[in-house]
């Protein structure tokens, strides 16, 4: 029985709270940099300039919030699905502290300008080594738990967890290979075209194996638990999983369309990007059909709203993304604000909504209680949704406008607009984007408050029971 298993929940909560902490910091920096683009006087000091802060925003949220949530949720989900505790709970505690130390060190070094200037791989080489050590500590505990499992079959979530563990390791190590020329300075072992190709193989698969497979692991775990219904189709899960992890690794060069990277690599990436619609939608369909006959839960169960809107944005994201890979679309949209619009539908829509549902669900289970306030959770949901929609939609509009203005010609064939003419027209949209960010942040702050109060309630109940 469950009671006999001595699950390690301390690190689960520790990572969830760490994720919330870095989430708050990351979103606040995001708001600041969104206004810096309109009001350059907000670049207060060298270490607070846009160029340095933007990478603190992306790294803080991808790795502080994203990985924090992933570590916490994976520790919980793996133990429960294996019906076995972590083999090395002390190692997991060290992992928690090292993780927070690493994110703090990442933020400080990036603010000081120590950067490799490769997107989502900006951290300099000593921190890269730290990240690898942290990842190995995590992998040992997760794989150890799975090997000790009492449940013979591994459920879908565990497939995604295992795929995440090996793929992130391969990606991170190969892309960060560098020649150190000082304690915090290095040069990539790859140069020029090769460096670009390796970087975007990494960059796109960081999206795949940090923002997709782990979040799917959470989705496949929490949806059946929250609805009380099994996932619609096991076969669809199987096809979706293998096709997704096979296809993803081919697609990196869709970030490099029309660059000097060889055309055949670009075209292959475009083709596989289109291919990825199928396995992505396998999960979307699986999610929707699981709701068959239970759609009333959208009203009655706050978690379902997060999960279903989350998977809906995943579905939209995985159609919009491949469409952007196509050369004709890339011509217009690439290098414009359409890209951050796309990215933030994925992160603020799919990732944040789904991870939030997982954190709510897991904290409830850790303390065997209900969330502190369902109305507050609903407020969080609506603010997150509205904030994200304002962000994405404004960026799509202004991106399209900018892209088309760059192409537009006069009757005599000369270019119709200067770069600055198009840039200026972004400003009102960027202000609206900032407002969307503030609304999203209000939702996030409510989320944090609700979780903290749930923990407090849980502790009180635990003390009363004892």
């Amino acid at each position, binding site marked *: 029985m469950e009671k006999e298993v001595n699950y390690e929940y301390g690190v689960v909560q520790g990572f969830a709270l760490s994720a919330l902490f870095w989430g708050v910091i990351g979103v606040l920096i995001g708001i600041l940099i969104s206004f810096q683009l309109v009001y350059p006087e907000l670049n207060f000091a060298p270490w607070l300039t846009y160029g340095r802060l933007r990478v603190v925003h992306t790294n803080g949220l991808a790795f502080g919030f994203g990985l924090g949530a992933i570590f916490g949720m994976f520790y919980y989900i793996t133990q429960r699905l294996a019906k076995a505790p972590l083999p090395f709970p002390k190692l997991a505690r060290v992992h928690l502290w090292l993780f927070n130390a690493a994110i703090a060190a990442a933020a400080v070094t990036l603010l000081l300008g120590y950067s490799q*200037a490769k997107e989502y791989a900006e951290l300099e080489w000593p921190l890269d080594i730290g990240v690898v050590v942290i990842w190995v500590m995590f992998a040992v505990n997760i794989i150890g738990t799975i090997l000790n499992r009492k449940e013979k079959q591994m459920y879908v979530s565990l497939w995604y967890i295992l795929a995440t563990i090996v793929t992130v390791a*391969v990606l991170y190590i190969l892309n960060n290979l560098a020649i150190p020329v000082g304690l915090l300075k290095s040069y990539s072992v790859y*140069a020029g075209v090769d460096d670009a190709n390796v970087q975007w193989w990494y960059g796109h698969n960081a999206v795949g194996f940090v923002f997709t497979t782990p979040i799917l692991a959470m989705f496949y775990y929490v949806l059946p638990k929250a609805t009380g219904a099994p996932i619609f189709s096991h076969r669809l899960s199987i096809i979706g999983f293998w096709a997704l992890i096979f296809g993803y690794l081919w697609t990196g060069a869709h970030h490099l369309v029309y660059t*000097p990277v*060889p055309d055949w690599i670009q075209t292959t990436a475009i083709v596989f990007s289109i291919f990825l619609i199928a396995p992505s939608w396998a999960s979307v369909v699986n999610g929707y059909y699981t709701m068959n006959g239970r759609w009333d839960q959208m009203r009655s169960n706050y978690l379902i709203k997060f999960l279903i809107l989350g998977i809906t944005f995943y579905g939209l994201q995985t159609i919009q993304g491949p469409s952007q890979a196509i050369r004709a679309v890339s011509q217009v949209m690439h290098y414009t604000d359409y890209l951050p619009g796309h990215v933030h539908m994925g992160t603020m829509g799919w990732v944040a909504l789904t991870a939030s549902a997982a954190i709510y669900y897991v904290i409830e289970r850790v303390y065997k209680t209900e969330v502190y306030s369902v109305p507050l959770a609903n407020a969080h949901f609506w603010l997150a949704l509205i904030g994200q929609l304002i962000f994405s939609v404004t960026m799509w509009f202004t991106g399209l406008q900018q892209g088309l203005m760059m192409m537009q010609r006069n009757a005599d064939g000369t270019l119709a607009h200067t770069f600055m003419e198009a840039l200026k027209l972004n400003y009102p949209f960027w202000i609206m984007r900032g407002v969307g960010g503030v609304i999203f942040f209000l939702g996030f702050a409510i989320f944090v408050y609700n979780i903290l109060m749930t923990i407090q309630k849980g502790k009180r109940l635990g003390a009363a029971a004892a």
Partner: protein
Amino acid sequence: MNVYSRPIVFLVLAIVVISVGTLVTTFIPLFAKTTSTPIDGIKPYTALELAGRDIYVREGCNNCHTQTVRPLKFETDRYGDYSRGGEFVYDRPFLWGSKRTGPDLAREGGRYPDAWHYQHFKDPRALVPDSNMPAYGWLEDTQVDPAVAEKKMAALGFPYTADEITALNGKTEMDAMVAYMQKLGRDFKEIMAAKNAQAAMPASALSNPYAGNKSAIEEGDDIFEVNCASCHGKDLKGGIGADLTAASLKFGGTDADLYASITGGRPGGMPPFKDALGDDKVWRVVSFIQYVRGGGEEAKEAGHGGHH
């Protein structure tokens, strides 16, 4: 029993599945010469330019500026010639970027004088009123460290002299940044200018690098057969096009004449092949034609028997 109840087998299988795309699109291309061979004339960075490039990296300029011009007409009209792979072989890391909050900088070198850049870094809005670029005047407050610069040059294997390192004394980070701005795309512009100057020279001033070169003649034969034989005949005796074995040719029979005819085309139906073949292949074809003209038809037939 299946793979879903065997975690180790599952892990191995997952590694195999993710390796296929990785090997084909990322690993194997690392060994392709086309992605790592410099264009003749592209030079590594000087110590000052490299210092500037590292500041560009430190300040995250790549978050707003790209450094690659796409081969699209509206793009080359705006920024200049499109980017070639061979321009970037000294770039660690590459700095192509993915978003243009500011304009592309791949062809920035020589676009403005140094003085423009100094003023623009200090106060972007003084020169571009609606600009949202942060001011970087504080780059003048820090000096480039010659010892560090030398270490970096050595680590990258770039050539440098002791004088070049000494000359860094007193240079500020601002000086380095401006030097880097002026380096962007400069070598490539010079290569293209030299090429254009060469193209403007009278053809008679050109000389065939492959005259009499046996392997070049054989390759020229192959190129001729694919591109020229349909009009001039496999035996060069003509058809739709002129008989190239004739004692005197309408547009001249010297190497330079043939080169001019092939690259630029001639009235009466001969199309230009400069872009399709490129100089190197054209000279091989010229060598082959001269070989046949010199040795006669027998040479051509013997050649066929030999290597086809």
